[in-house]
């Protein structure tokens, strides 16, 4: 298995990568911080990855995506799967009053995904096999007053992936949309925890399985499918008054 991971230093991506590493996969890791990338690279090597290549890049630099993906193909001699997992969780109360910050969050959490997916779609459509997984969020299922900047960006990712899945299914390529609920990671370190929080290890295991099977839309843990199903059914007239 030859796998590209964008946002490889995220806790969820790392946990997923551990399962592929134990299978002897070849991995191309993309992340911002070279030191953290090295820590992940060594861990995956010890755990059995056949080869691990690190590539330091801020994925907000969209114009460098093309070169990065070419480099991944060259370094591994092809790609079987991609996991796009980078992201930031903005402080809604702050960014909602700031146009530049709101757009920046959209750049990180939506546009950079769309940029990567557009380039990868061409390659995977041609090779007619493989799997592209994106980490979206349950937050993208409905715009909530408390988190709509992040939610809208993730919603864009979910919709884009849905359309891409329809297009690439004809080429035999799987597009997997992962929708985690609350996960106990550095991204949520500042938030108060509740019993709905899942461990990154559990989420990583689920993503690994979903990628191997080429599933479509995966809620992690599973019960979020039902929670979000109910939340989507609430009429807007009522929903706008709810403290969500």
């Amino acid at each position: 298995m030859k796998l590209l991971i964008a946002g490889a230093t995220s806790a969820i991506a790392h946990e997923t990568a551990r399962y592929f590493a134990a299978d002897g996969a070849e991995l191309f890791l993309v992340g911002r911080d070279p030191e953290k990338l090295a820590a992940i690279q060594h861990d995956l090597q010890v755990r059995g990855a056949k080869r691990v290549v690190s590539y330091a890049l801020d994925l907000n630099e969209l114009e460098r995506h093309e070169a990065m993906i070419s480099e991944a193909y060259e370094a591994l001699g092809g790609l079987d799967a991609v996991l796009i997992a980078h992201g930031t969780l903005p402080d809604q109360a702050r960014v909602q009053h700031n146009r530049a910050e709101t757009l920046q969050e959209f750049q990180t959490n939506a546009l950079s995904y769309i940029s990567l997916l557009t380039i990868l779609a061409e390659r995977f459509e041609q090779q007619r096999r493989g799997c592209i997984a994106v980490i979206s969020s349950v937050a993208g299922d409905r715009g909530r007053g408390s988190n709509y900047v992040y939610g809208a960006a993730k919603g864009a990712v979910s919709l884009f992936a849905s359309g891409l899945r329809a297009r690439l299914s004809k080429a035999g390529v799987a597009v997997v949309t992962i929708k985690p609920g609350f996960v106990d990671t550095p991204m949520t370190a500042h938030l108060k925890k509740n019993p709905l929080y899942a461990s990154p290890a559990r989420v990583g295991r689920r993503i690994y399985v979903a990628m191997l099977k080429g599933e479509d839309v995966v809620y992690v843990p599973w019960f979020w499918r039902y929670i979000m199903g109910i939340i989507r059914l609430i009429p807007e007239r009522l929903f706008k008054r709810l403290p969500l």
Partner: protein
Amino acid sequence: MIINGHGRTYQSWGRYPKVKRQNVVRIHWRGDSLDLAHINGSVLPRGLGRSYGDSCLNEDGTLLDTTPLNRFIAFDESAGLLRCEAGVTLAEILRLIVPRGWFLPTTPGTKFVTVGGAIANDVHGKNHHRAGTFGRHVTRFELLRSNGERLICSPDENADLFRATIGGLGLTGLILWAEFRVQRVAGPFIAKEQIRFSCIDEFFEISADSDERYEHTMAWVDCLATGRNLGRGLFMRGNYTRPKPIPRQTTEPRSLFTMPIQLPAFVLNLMTVRAFNSLYYHSQLPKRTFRTVPYDPFFYPLDAIHEWHRLYGAPGFLQYQFVVPYAQDRTAIKAILTEISRSGVVSFLAVLKVFGDVPSPGMLSFPRPGVTLALDFPFRGQRTLALLDRLDQIVQAHGGVVNPAKDARMSAASFQAFYPQWREFAQYIDPKFSSSFWRRVTQASHE
């Protein structure tokens, strides 16, 4: 304020004493510039919190949760050296190394501890008579001090701090990563022999006969038996093996069961424990049995029940472990067993083992040549505490010491008598680091 990592408070494994106010800061990356000096109050590293007593608690202070530091760094199979971050668990290590023909140099009775915790408590296991403590096999580690210094410690470099940190109960700084030796083993199974012994003298005979030929030895003792039966129990010994044909299931089994609720405290009483002990002792009809078992149930029988400490109910329980020198061993063990059965306080689990003479590297390490007995007591207030104070006196009179890493109650005077080297050790404590345990056992001399 209590910040919960997983929606749960951070208590000790024995759940006595209970802390009310404690902060938690998670350590995510070993390379981050970690500014410990600016945290309010004192700090204490914390792994999986399997310490029974208060050495893993820091009331009114901050715990540095190291569990996100769970990355391997290097595994040199030609030298048998593994390097990993401090929060990697022994369970994770076994999952990695066992399929490649390796095993831990020694292991405590649970695999759900971190490497940092194994070093800070200088843990020991059933092969102590051969391998010594875990700290014996540590070649180096990196220690972060609150002044921002990062020190590589080994027997050659910062050697004093190396000795102080092994068994140093987390007080000398934050271990970021460690390197230690692992051992090649014949296979991930244990050829296990179990022998019933009817009294303490018989235990010593079997033990003397076993240590030469067996890597692992230990015994379960029925500490409610009295008179003629005083010190009866089951002796277990074994060696690594690879059975032929190899059974299909060689990896660790999935946990069988999670203790779903806290049992009411009265469930474990004199009658039920006596019945259990008697049943367990008589469950083995022949004098000796031989079986080849996977490593997991041999080393970690209790890991099969997640959260087994809930058996003891809300009040929690205390673990009491001591070691007495060989010359004094029989009289001391008999005196203690007699004292316990006379007190009417129940001990559910009692484990007896003869330590070897491999020296422990740690300044404050507990294991030393002699005989050790570990006992679990459900916490029943003053009655339990008073009994343990009396046991301290018996241990002290026989030249023994009590294990501080498992302690939740010994007096400052007892601790300082057991570990006169504590003043020397105190020089190496990081001024920012402290624990509920350390304040308790040094209080008297600070005031």
